[in-house]
């Protein structure tokens, strides 16, 4: 340690620290400062006794106040549910198609539904509800099982092609690789392409039309417009759940598709099912 120096002007000892010729005087701090430090120490001891503080092997000391963030959050949620009890009761009793006529309730349902959607639905359908390959886009105007708010509610409540809910919307497309010859599959794929596109092999599509009429039209309809009772997609529009190019269509025909959605009836409250249906309906694609 260097020898202490004294500042000539003030007569105060310096700390020996020197920054570009500027020296720090070793003036004493005010004593109340020290008392403030002691007070904070006493406060800290009291605080660690009152509140959860010291880490232990499993968890931490719980404190004598019985304070817990989880309990606080639960209480907050309960308080909000309590505040909204009226709206929840109205929502559960409401006639869903008429919901927009009650703007306050509608706004509440959509806000609540948005939260339910982000927590439960966004994993497959995306946070913006744009879907992904195999998971329908909920923003467009194409609905496999129907897009009015009651149909959406049925889909949410029971799910699709699951084995949990007996009322699940169900259908199954056969895998045609064991039924049709490869040439027939090529032809029917060309026919399906011709339904929505202007660039196709007319001769091949002509052959495919026959195969289509025999094997596909019972579900997808003669003109390929689909059938909602069976969740059979419209093949004549611009929207493709798995892709509309020939290779993808060939796989679809050969292996078939079997999109599953779980039933939300057992997991969500009635108000949440209604709210999320209202939300999905409001996203812009509802009918």
């Amino acid at each position, binding site marked *: 340690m260097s020898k202490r120096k004294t500042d000539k002007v003030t007569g105060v000892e310096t700390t020996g620290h020197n920054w570009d010729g500027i020296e720090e005087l070793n003036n004493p701090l005010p004593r*109340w*400062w020290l008392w403030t430090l002691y007070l904070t120490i006493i406060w800290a001891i009291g605080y660690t006794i009152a509140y959860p503080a010291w880490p232990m092997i499993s968890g931490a000391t719980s404190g004598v106040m019985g304070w817990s963030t989880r309990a606080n959050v639960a209480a907050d949620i309960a308080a909000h549910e309590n505040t909204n009890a009226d709206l929840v009761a109205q929502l559960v009793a409401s006639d869903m198609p008429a919901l927009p006529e009650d703007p306050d309730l509608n706004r509440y349902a959509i806000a609540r539904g948005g939260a339910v959607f982000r927590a439960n639905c966004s994993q497959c359908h995306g946070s913006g509800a744009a879907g992904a390959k195999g998971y329908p886009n909920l923003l467009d105007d194409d609905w496999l099982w129907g897009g009015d708010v009651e149909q959406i509610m049925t889909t949410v409540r029971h799910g699709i092609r699951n084995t949990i809910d007996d009322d699940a919307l169900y259908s199954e497309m056969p895998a045609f690789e064991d039924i049709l010859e490869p040439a027939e599959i090529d032809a029917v794929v060309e026919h399906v392409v011709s339904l929505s596109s202007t660039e196709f092999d007319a001769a091949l599509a002509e052959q495919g039309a026959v195969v289509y009429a025999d094997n596909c039209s019972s579900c997808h309809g003669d003109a390929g417009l689909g059938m909602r009772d069976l969740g059979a997609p419209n093949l004549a529009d611009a929207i493709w759940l798995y892709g509309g190019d020939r290779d993808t269509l060939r796989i679809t025909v050969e292996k078939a598709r079997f999109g599953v959605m779980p039933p939300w009836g057992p997991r969500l409250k009635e108000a949440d099912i209604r709210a999320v249906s209202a939300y999905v309906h409001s996203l812009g694609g509802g009918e």
Partner: protein
Amino acid sequence: MTSQTNQPLYAARTPIFPRRVNGFFRRFKWWIMAVTLGIYYLTPWLRWDRGVSLPDQAVLIDLANRRFYFLWIEIWPHEFYFVAGLLIMAGLGLFLFTSALGRVWCGYTCPQTVWTDLFLLVERWIEGDRNARLRLHKATWDVRKWRLRLTKWAVWLMIAVATGGAWVFYFTDAPTLLRDLLSFDSHPAAYITIAILTATTFIFGGFLREQVCIYMCPWPRIQAAMMDPDTITVAYRDWRGEPRGKGNVKNRKAAEAQKAVAEAQAAGAGVARYAGTPYPGKEAQPATPPKLDIANEHGDCIDCMACVNVCPMGIDIRNGQQMECITCALCIDACDDVMARIGKPRGLIDYLALSDEPAERAGAAPKPLWRHILRPRTILYTVMWLLVGVGLLYALFIRSDIELTVSPVRNPTFVVLSDGDVRNIYDVRLRNKAGEERVFRLSLSSDALMRIALEGSDNLNVAVPADTTVLQRVYVTARAGDPAASADSTALRLWVEDVTAQIRASKATTFNGRGAQ
């Protein structure tokens, strides 16, 4: 540690007992105190008629409804730049005043100074002036001391409660809050705020005083960095006062008057400031030059300690510029008083620019005041201050009664519909700042042919209640064959129009197509 000296780590506070002083600056400070305290306590009680649905308090920070009301100006949350701009102006104003006039903020208008001054007034009123207080401080705690102290603390506490109480009135309707406070119906937040501000006022104003300025406040360091030798600040004319000493006051009086007259004749009116300009109410300097006795070579300072005794910061200004000095000018009053009594010109301690020292030493005229004030940095600060101010005023006058913000939904950027049309979704916030409900019609202008539709509505009208913001989802669709559907992005403008009044507003945005495929 190998400390060579017995320097203590912590020092007990040296109590300060400022003496009462009279004079120009003291009177000026009383006026400033009256005006600032008046503004603080009375502002929430000013009323302003804004119509039925809006509060009628002239200045109101309505946090619950996210609205600031200042007389005829109403600030919405998205216009918070007004508040930011005012804070920037306050900062630039502080820079300007500090570089021109030193720490005038500290000395005159800082709440710590104003309330400490008020508390000192109460202290002096109850316990007496400096000497009485010193005696009381050293006295044992007998009945008299307890009585005086408890009385003082009680009055301080009343002031502190009034101070904390006045603060909460800025945040809600004052008469209603006062009634609720008195009947114990107010929100706990109000009581807690009052309690905290009462405690800080009581402790800071009553007990910590100069400790706040020296140890807690960052401004002394910041303000000191804005001062330079041309800044007008409180200083001691050591070239005139030294060497100090009592001397023969009578002889020196004569000598000095002689000298002053001779100098005044030699240098003309230029040395008026050296000689000390009388402030309003000050006695004029003695005019008759008595007989000369030059034997006494003392300076003007008679070391009476008046400047030290009146200083609320407990410093000796004769030691030069100090960080602790808040330039409150009470030492000027005290010294001028003494100078008048011993027959010297005022201004031994004075507001002066340190750059004038060489000129004054040589007996020459100091630079005129305006040349100290008008410097590149003060001009720059003024220009910046004016620019921000004019900008804010401009922004204030171009504000419209209807506003909209358009947030294109970017998750996903576009949606392809079954017939191949491309649709974009926009979240449009419509603000109706008027006091009555309005119906707005939305429309589109763009080179491309697009359709506009509203969520949950068959027409393009949106009703927005008075003083409210409504969030409306808007769909814009481009036909499959339209260039907009296949372009990456197309310019688009959304219009809102008041259906009855002819007010229009618009926002530019873009439409996202499928892009080149």
